[in-house]
C-alpha cells in the first residue's frame, strides 16, 4: 500500500486536545496522545477514566466534541475507511452474533471490509483462529463459547489482516492465566514484527511486562505519557534497612543527604535519590550500626501511579 513519506514518519496514534462530553459530564478532557511507530503503548487508568471513550474516538465510532486525532498519519474519522483496514481492534470486549459459529462470525466481519479479498477469506479466517487457539471451536456457535473463548475470537477478528496498528482494549479480560500468557506472547510477537500495539488495561502488572511506552489516564485527563524508562525515573527508588539501632541510623542518613528517612518496625526506610546503596551501608558500618539487611525497593507501576495521581489505582474517576 503506497504511503507518503510524511505519513510514514507520523506517529501511529496522535491526538490534540481531544475532548468529549456525554451530556454535561466531561469524559475525555483535552488529551494529547503521542504513540510512536513500533511502540507497545500501555494505556492505563482506573475504570471510568475515559480510556474506552478515547479508543472509540480514535476508531471513529464516536465524534469528538473538539480536538483532532489521527491513526498512522490519517485524520480520523474522515479517513476511516482508508486507514482502518490497517488497524485491528478489540473494543470493550468481543461482540458477535450468538447463533453464528466463530468462523461464520469472522467471515461476516471480513465481508464488511470492501478491500478484503474474498478468495483468501477462508484461509485468513482459519489462520486467525489458529493464532488464538480456537481452531477446534471454529464451527461451534458463539453462544456456546466461554468468556475466554469469546475474548480470543475478538482478538482473532483483529488479526484477520496483516495490521500496522493494533488497538486492544483490555485484551486479557476473562482469560485464564494460560490465556493471559498466550496473549502477552502474541502481543510481543506482533510487536516484534513491527506492529504498533496500543493496549489499554487496568492490570498494572500486565502493562509492566509488555509495554515500552505508557500513558496514564485519570478522570478524563492524560496525566503522564512517555517511554516507560522515563516515567520510571520519575519515581525515586526506595530502600528498607533492618537494624536494631534506628535512631543513630537516621542520624547517619541525614549526614548522607537522605532527608526522608523514617523509622519503621524493625528498621528504617528512605529514598535513595543520588546516594548509592553501598555508601549507606559503609557509612552505617563505620558508625558502628548493625545492618541486618538492606533491601533496595524498585518502584512498581502502582507506586508510579500513586505518585502521578496522588491516589490509589482502584479509585474510579
Amino acid at each position: 500500500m503506497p504511503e507518503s513519506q510524511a505519513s510514514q514518519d507520523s506517529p501511529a496514534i496522535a491526538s490534540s486536545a481531544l475532548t468529549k462530553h456525554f451530556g454535561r459530564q466531561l469524559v475525555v478532557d483535552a488529551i494529547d496522545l503521542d504513540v510512536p511507530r513500533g511502540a507497545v503503548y500501555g494505556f492505563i487508568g482506573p475504570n471510568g477514566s475515559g480510556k474506552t471513550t478515547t479508543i472509540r474516538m480514535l476508531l471513529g465510532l464516536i465524534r469528538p466534541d473538539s480536538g483532532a486525532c489521527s491513526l498512522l498519519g490519517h485524520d480520523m474519522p474522515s479517513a476511516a475507511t482508508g486507514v482502518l483496514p490497517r488497524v485491528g481492534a478489540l473494543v470493550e470486549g468481543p461482540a458477535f452474533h450468538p447463533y453464528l459459529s466463530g468462523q461464520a462470525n469472522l467471515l461476516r466481519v471480513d465481508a464488511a471490509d470492501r478491500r478484503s479479498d474474498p478468495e483468501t477469506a477462508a484461509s485468513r479466517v482459519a489462520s486467525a483462529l489458529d493464532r488464538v487457539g480456537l481452531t477446534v471451536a471454529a464451527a461451534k456457535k458463539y453462544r456456546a463459547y466461554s468468556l475466554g473463548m469469546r475474548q480470543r475470537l475478538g482478538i482473532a477478528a483483529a488479526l484477520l489482516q496483516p495490521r500496522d496498528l493494533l488497538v486492544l482494549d483490555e485484551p486479557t479480560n476473562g482469560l485464564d492465566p494460560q490465556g493471559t500468557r498466550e496473549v502477552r506472547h502474541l502481543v510481543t510477537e506482533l510487536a516484534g514484527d513491527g506492529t504498533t500495539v496500543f493496549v489499554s488495561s487496568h492490570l498494572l502488572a500486565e502493562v509492566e511486562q509488555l509495554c515500552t511506552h505508557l500513558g496514564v489516564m485519570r478522570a478524563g485527563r492524560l496525566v503522564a505519557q512517555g517511554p516507560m524508562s522515563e516515567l520510571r525515573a520519575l519515581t525515586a527508588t526506595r530502600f528498607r534497612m533492618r537494624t536494631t539501632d534506628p535512631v543513630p541510623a537516621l542520624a547517619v542518613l541525614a549526614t548522607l543527604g537522605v532527608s526522608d528517612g523514617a523509622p519503621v518496625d524493625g528498621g528504617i526506610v528512605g529514598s535513595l535519590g543520588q546516594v548509592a546503596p553501598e555508601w549507606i551501608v559503609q557509612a552505617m558500618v563505620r558508625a558502628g550500626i548493625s545492618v541486618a539487611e538492606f533491601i533496595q525497593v524498585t518502584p512498581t507501576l502502582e507506586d508510579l501511579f500513586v505518585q502521578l495521581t496522588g491516589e490509589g489505582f482502584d479509585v474510579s474517576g
Partner: protein
Amino acid sequence: MSAAEVVVARRPRPVRAWLRLLGSELGLMFSRRRNRVGVGILFGLVVLVGIALKVSAVRRPRSPAGDLMSAVAGNGIFLGFAGLTVEIALFLPLAVAVLAGDTVAGEANQGTLRYLLIAPVARGRLLVVKAVSLAIGSLVGAAVVALSGVLTGAALFNIGPLTTLSGTRLGVAEGLLRLVLAVGYLAAGLSALAMIGLFISTLTEQPIAATVATAMVSTLLWILDTVPQLDWLHPWLLVDRWLSFVDLLRDPVFTDRMVTGLWVDAAYAAVFLALAWLRFRDKDITS
C-alpha cells in the same frame, strides 16, 4: 504471509465487495431461526385460509364474481390474491417490522455494529446494504404468501383459466403473471414501511422497541385510513393504495391507483431512508 503479498494480490472490485456484504446480510437474515419461523407462519396462514374456504365452499353457495374469497373455490390461483389480501394488513407488516427492528438496533444491541464499522465499512454503505436487504426481505415475504396461495390452491381447488373481476377470462400463465405483479407491487409498499423501520432502528439500541414502534406505525396508518372524517388525509397515507393490487384482476388492468401508490411508496422510502442516514451518519456508537 507478509503484508506485501496480500496487498499485491488485490485489485479493488467494488461491485463484488458490495454483493459480498449484501450476501452476508441476507445470510444473517435467513439463517435466524426466528425469521424462518416467520416465513413458515406467513405460509401456513394462507393454508389455513384455503382450508377454511374449502370447508365453507361446501356449505355455502358461491356469491357472484367480484368477491375474491368466493372466487377461490372456482380457481386456486385466486387463493394467492386472497392470501395477500388477508396478510397485507397485519402479518406482512409485522414480519417487515421484525426484520427492520433487527437491522441497526439489533447490531447495536449486540455490539456487533462497532466491529462492522471498524472492519471497516462506511456508514452509508452499511445503511444502503441494510436497506436493500430489507427490500429483499419484503419481497420474499410477499412471495411466500403468493406461493403458498398457489400451492394450496392447486392442492385444494382446481387451477385453470381464471375469470377476471371484469368478467373476461385469462390463461393460467397470464393469471400467474398478474399474481407476480401483485407480489412486486406489495413488496414496494412493504419496502417503504421497512425504511420507516430502518429509521426507527437507528434511533434505539433495543431491537424489540424498534419492531414494536414500526408495527404501531403500520397499524396506525391502517386505522387512520378507515376513519371517514380523515378522508382528506387518506391519499397521503402509505397503506391507502396497498389493496389496489386487486386492480390487477381487472381486464384491462386498471393501473391509475397502483401507479400513484408506487409514487407514494417511493416518497415514503426516500424520506425515511434520508432520515435514517442523517441520524446514522454522525451517531455516536457507544454500544
